[in-house]
């Protein structure tokens, strides 16, 4: 267990560093849902860095999935559920202006009330949905 916690801390440091590097060099907040969606829109001004960020993420993810096969997992949920959840995540993150990195890391680092509230709410949403799903369908194995 201590090995896992050590990895969690090291990983957290790297995440914090990644966000800080983007801020120091580019002056931007690492709100990944925003960066991702904007990178897809041709009309986005200053699109290049966003695309590069996404490529950096996806490319690194792909390489790590190959180098560390046990480190990346697929959702245990069915495809229709994943599709519905994808819509919820896409819609909700745009409506709420951000996700775990933008609000959870960057926003809370600035002591933004909006981000603290948002983070508590999306965790509550996650926990609540899980409990509801289990109550309806029975526990996932």
């Amino acid at each position: 267990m201590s090995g896992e916690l050590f990895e969690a801390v090291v990983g957290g440091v790297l995440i914090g560093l990644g966000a800080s590097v983007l801020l120091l060099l580019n002056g931007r907040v690492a709100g990944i849902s925003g960066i991702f969606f904007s990178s897809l829109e041709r009309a986005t001004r200053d699109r290049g860095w966003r695309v590069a960020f996404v490529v950096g993420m996806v490319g690194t993810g792909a390489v790590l999935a190959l180098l560390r096969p046990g480190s990346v997992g697929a959702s245990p949920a069915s495809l229709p559920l994943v599709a519905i959840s994808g819509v919820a995540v896409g819609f909700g993150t745009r409506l709420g202006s951000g996700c775990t990195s933008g609000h959870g890391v960057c926003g809370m680092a600035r002591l933004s009330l909006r981000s603290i509230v948002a983070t508590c709410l999306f965790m509550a949403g996650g926990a609540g949905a899980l409990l509801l799903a289990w109550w309806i369908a029975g526990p996932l194995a």
Partner: protein
Amino acid sequence: MSRVLAAFFAGVLFTLGLNLSGMTLPDKILGFLDFTGLYTGAWDPSLIVVMTTALLVHAVLYRLITRRAKPVLAERFIIPPPGRVDAPLVVGSLVWGAGWGLT
């Protein structure tokens, strides 16, 4: 270094952190979101450890970095101004959180 390259590097760092911390494993996320685990002893605090660590690191560096007049490669910092806690924030967060927990 160009801003594009810098952003790429930031994305690499970020994803390394996600991967090393186990945040790319749905089981670890579900292990955290399932708060009944607090009773059964099966609760996985990893996500909150990761987020808190990242948060603390970034909080310290954020203060230091924003003392600068400008970022290294850009003309100004573009940081969202403080805002109100409004309905879109609340609804949006709950909705995506629900989707997140379901899968």
